[in-house]
């Protein structure tokens, strides 16, 4: 019911945004690339040519690096999580290094202590002219979980792959990016006590996410961002459970926020 209400509110906000969009968007298109804002805040075009953005596809010169510290919060009804009464944010660390000509090296760590994801990969970003830009990336790494308390002596480990596509739109000093990711994990192995084993429902497909982010430029060239989206994942990934014993999928909202140095 909670999410049904959220869905209705989403429609209202979405429609209102769409009604208000046309003049603003046209203005943004004709203004691009935008001139520096009078406040001194750098434009999206300037930042894209300097250190680039974490989400908005940009192609900075080779050797330009970006480091970001953020948090993600999954809005899951705690009652669904069998015994958990609260949900806390996960830490997100990102690093990207431009290889030039639109190519990027990317590294990402996501951690809520019990379950952790560490990925490295490459991306290619393309500026399509005007305010639009596009990106594709592929990362691979580890899904690692460990718990030695609360009745657990367990560890799980799996190989994770994450292909991503991003479409970006510049509003001058604000960049909007919609990123779709596939979350593929497997095979996973786990240890309980001294016993290792695999899982019956060890399908590679773990879920997908669609996150819309807003990246705000600053005078220094750093960027603060926030965003939200939908995660659709298997239950164990959603609930930070170490063992994937069900192929059932859950859809839940995710909010993200952070700072790009």
């Amino acid at each position, binding site marked *: 019911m909670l999410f049904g209400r959220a869905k209705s509110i989403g429609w209202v*906000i979405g429609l209102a945004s769409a009604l208000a969009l046309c003049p*603003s968007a046209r203005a943004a298109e004709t203004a691009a690339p935008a001139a520096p804002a009078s406040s001194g805040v750098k434009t999206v075009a300037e930042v894209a040519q300097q250190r680039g953005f974490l989400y908005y596809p940009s192609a900075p010169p080779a050797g330009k690096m970006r480091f970001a510290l953020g948090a993600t919060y999954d809005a899951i009804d705690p009652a669904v999580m069998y015994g958990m009464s609260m949900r806390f944010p996960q830490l997100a660390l990102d690093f990207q290094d431009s290889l030039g000509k639109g190519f990027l090296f990317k590294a990402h760590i996501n951690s809520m202590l019990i379950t952790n994801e560490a990925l490295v990969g490459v991306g290619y970003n393309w500026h399509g002219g005007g305010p639009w830009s596009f990106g594709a990336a592929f990362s691979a790494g580890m899904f690692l979980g460990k718990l030695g308390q609360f009745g657990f002596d367990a560890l799980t480990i799996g190989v994770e792959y994450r292909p991503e596509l991003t479409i970006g739109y510049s509003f001058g000093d604000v960049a909007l990016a919609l990123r779709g990711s596939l979350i593929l994990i497997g095979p996973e192995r786990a240890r309980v006590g001294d016993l290792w084993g695999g899982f019956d429902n060890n399908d590679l497909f773990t879920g997908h996410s669609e996150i819309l982010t807003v990246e705000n430029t600053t005078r220094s060239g750093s960027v603060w961002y926030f965003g939200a989206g939908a995660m659709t994942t298997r239950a164990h990934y959603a609930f930070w459970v170490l063992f994937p014993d*069900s192929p059932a999928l859950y859809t839940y909202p995710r909010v993200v926020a952070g700072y790009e140095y």
Partner: protein
Amino acid sequence: MNTKTFAYALAIGAPLLLADCEQATEVTIPMFNDGGLLRGGTALEREQLLDFEGMFSVGKGSELLGDQASIISRPGTVSVLTNKNAGFAVLGAACLPDRRVVVEGYWQYPTRSDAGLVQLFVDPPAVAQAFCNGERAAPDTSFTLTGSYGERNEFPTKPLALRWAHELKEWRGRFYTVAHHGACEATDHCGVSQNSIETIRLAERTGSNAAELDVRVTRDGIPVLFHDPGLSSALVRGLFCNGQIKDLSLAELRGSCLLRYGEQIPTVEAALDMMVNETELEGVYLDQKTPEGVLPTARLVAQLNTDLKARNTNSDPSDDRKFGALIAITTDEVLDAWHSAIATLNAENEQRVEQGEAPLELPRCLLEYDTDKVIAEGCVAWGPTWTKGPQASEVQKLRDHGIGTIFWTINESEFIEGFLTAAQPNGIITARAALLFQTYQLIGTVPAELPVLPAGGGQP
């Protein structure tokens, strides 16, 4: 609306359009359009269904069942159990007017949406004739079930043939396949809700011989079966079904809430009555989620133990019923409540004796954590979580004290095999009963006879 406001609104609003909760599972239990052949036949007697039990080799249809499958019988049904995708088939058996015996029903892989119909016939004809004559037919390697299976509601056309290979490893009263709050997980496709009367009935048909059920107490002190403290859409439905179990009376709970698939939230009393009188389950593991539930549950179990003892010691052996109910102690707070409950029941028994009545048979306990406390408290079983591993030395220590072990909750093939091999427990709680039953039959060791779920009352 300026561009920045628009971007913000879109980022916050648009994802909410996508937001939903758990994706609804499609549940279709296949049925024959015309009711099948069973409708025109005469159902076999309960004792005759026992003759179907055994380990069968799968000649045709191994893509559905693997190379071997167990068949067990239950009142009115026989069940085919496989370790392939934890699959099971629930079948009825009847003698047809043409003197064939049909075995018909549906199969299902519970973690997926795969399901279909099954129609088999008993061979050789002499065995079918014996069944139709109301006789027993001791199985041997000539006993086969031949026919077909299909997908969904399509009439079965894919060949399926099972041949009796050998008797089942001893399981009744020895190894407990304990249904994890019923036959299936909430995310499965079984079409029944966890902790419902209906799932208990399905549980024994999918290979369980005991059930683990979760106990909470309503505001008016009635113990009911429910897992979570609160009423969430994952487990219940109903426009006004909100809040905490402990804050609602049974009437309010029943008036506002149905379980996920439309069943009523059962009381512990109704569930015990159903299990004893309508199933052949051998016991129940009553998982005490709160200390408040211990005394009212212990009272119900004490009365049940007393009634069973009376049934099992009277002069009529036909009403004997072996069934054990354990109070599962999950925390030190529940343990304190257990001490208090036993003291209360002892005091009530003293009053009963003074009034010339027979005392009630005290319930017995299972403790889920400290093995030393299991021994000190005189519990009959230990119920450790599987997430700490097989803990074989602890299992053996308790076995040396005459105490059994039932692990919770293992649903994975490799880990079921590992625990059966390393710890040789007396039982495992699982939501994959068919998988556990078949794996026990293939690689398990028959546990020493321990009074893990002893029938009737009294300390073991």
